[in-house]
């Protein structure tokens, strides 16, 4: 390897420069540059091409979203909150609403969405007249023409797999991490059952509590679970915790 610039340029150039040399350089560069095509565009009339993976505002696929709230918890600026709304069949559901005035376009909401409902979109022209207009409700977040490139997937490899030499099984926390229950602590309040967005928890009769009343404890369907950690956060006795597979 050699230096490309330092070898070529003498270090005492200033002494050898007199007024004709700079003029000559400028004329040479002028002749070289003038045939090149223009680098600027007439912005509002012409627009630059933006690739699909561009991280503009977040977009939501309303029907795919399950209302788990992981995007709201992952957002570094806390600009997402879940709001009650009705879906096409009139059922009450929870969907994210984004305050774009605070959004920093980091793309975490798209990346950490377990069902790929949240996407990044190439939409960048977001100016509005009032701050309220910057709050995008779940319906307004929809983006026409969502494609594969806009969904950000997490493709992680388990450290244990890499050590064993298995390199072709990408996975993610949503596929392998599951909550586990400490049965002794559970009081059967059913909060986790109510809060699970995908209905992966069912309550079953398991003996009696200390007062002699029948007690129900949750059973977690590991296939349905998407590891959104809602049950872990809502458990009043902290008897659920996520078991991380590494």
């Amino acid at each position, binding site marked *: *390897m*050699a*230096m*490309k*610039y*330092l070898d070529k*340029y003498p*270090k*005492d*150039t*200033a*002494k050898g*420069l*007199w*007024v004709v*040399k*700079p003029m000559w*350089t*400028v004329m*040479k*560069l002028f002749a*070289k*540059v003038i045939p090149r095509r223009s*680098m600027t565009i007439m912005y509002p009339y012409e627009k630059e091409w*933006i*690739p699909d*993976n*561009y*991280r503009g505002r977040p977009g939501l696929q309303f029907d795919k979203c399950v209302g788990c709230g992981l995007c709201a918890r*992952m957002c*570094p600026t806390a600009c997402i909150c879940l709001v009650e709304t009705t879906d096409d069949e009139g059922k009450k559901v929870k969907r994210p609403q984004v305050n774009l005035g605070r959004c*920093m*376009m*980091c*793309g*975490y909401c798209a*990346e950490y969405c377990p069902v790929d409902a949240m996407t*990044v979109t190439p939409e960048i022209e977001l100016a509005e007249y009032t701050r309220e207009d910057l709050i995008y409700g779940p319906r307004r977040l929809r983006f026409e023409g969502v494609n594969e*490139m806009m969904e*950000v997937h*997490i*493709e*992680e*490899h*388990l*450290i244990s797999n*890499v050590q064993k030499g298995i*390199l*072709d099984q*990408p*996975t*993610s*926390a949503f596929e*392998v991490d599951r909550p586990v229950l400490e049965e002794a602590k559970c009081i059967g309040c059913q909060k986790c059952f109510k809060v699970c967005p995908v209905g992966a928890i069912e309550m079953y009769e398991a003996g009696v509590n200390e007062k002699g009343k029948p007690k129900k404890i949750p059973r977690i369907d590991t296939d349905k679970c998407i590891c959104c950690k809602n049950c872990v956060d809502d458990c009043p006795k902290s008897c659920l915790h996520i078991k*991380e*597979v*590494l």
Partner: protein
Amino acid sequence: MMPEPEIKLDSMNTDRMTVIMGPQHPFSHGLWTLKVEVDGEIVTDAEPIIGYLHRGWEKECENRTYPKIIPMADRLCYSASMTWSHIYCMTVEKALDVDIPDKAKYLRIVADEICRIQSHLMWLAAVGTDLGNLTVFLWAMREREFFLDLNVRLCGARMTTNYPRIGGVRNDTTEYFDRDCMRCVERFEKRLWDIIALVDDSSVFVSRMQGISRLTREQVANLGVTGPAMRGCGVDFDIRRDDPYDGYDEMDFEVPVLKEGDTYARYMVRIEEMFQSCEIIRQAMKKIQDMPRSAPYRLKVPSAVPEGTHFARLEDPRGESLMYLISDGTDKPYRLKVRSPIFVNVSAAKPMVQGCRIADVPAVMAMVDMCLGETDR
């Protein structure tokens, strides 16, 4: 050109005056103040005043989980966003004791060097305007645009990349990234010569930089100056070569070092660094292309970091940056300390501008490549 007459400070009998340059001043790229004391036209004393942009970054981190800090680390410096999030991830990886896959290492190198080139171009543009040559500004910004477009192809954002992740990188290269990257680097190497000709063949430029603000090796070492400013003073040290991290030991590149120690040497070191970065990008891209498409690039890491203190350092475009992490076993850091290269470099302002003429102060301080986001945090 006539040789510079020697400047004797005592012989001139003029009134001392204090000039406050900044916080809003064309030469201060960002919000900071240089309080210079002048004796006639000669600077006798200088004191940098910083802190206008303090936003409590380090404290903010203490109530965020580890992944949420990565986009914040991007915002420490907008033109070196990739290296800042890289060093944050490196620190946490050290704490977790994970070894990231090879592909992630090379992808990080590519992104790092793209970041270095675009940061140096941003600096070149700033130097151009500081020294009164708008063409250099426009051309450097034009070339920079191509590297920002490469960033978009790679990770979807122009400047705040948010690309590295704890345990790897966000995504694999997208379609056509290899092709675009090679083309862009090749084209840039040709076009950079145009800008060099514009600067180096212009006696206006060169005479304002050559022989001004000389620092010696000893001074640089005592002041803790790092980065191109240090290498321009004859200290042969680059963390990429001397304490290699994340696959830099497999790259073959030269570290430009000049003995002059003046402003012009700092300029030359940065220009050569851009050429070397192009070379590194080429080598790293070659290694990525040789790997199968399905090679792992991201590891699944635990969310809680075991108790301990760790630090990592890397070669930022501006110098040596370091992050020091104290973790307490939870999923949030107990303390995260940032060592910003500019914070240290700007404290050397006094020896740098002492004895210069006041008109040379912008030229000298432009070589520090100020970035207030990381200095004040």
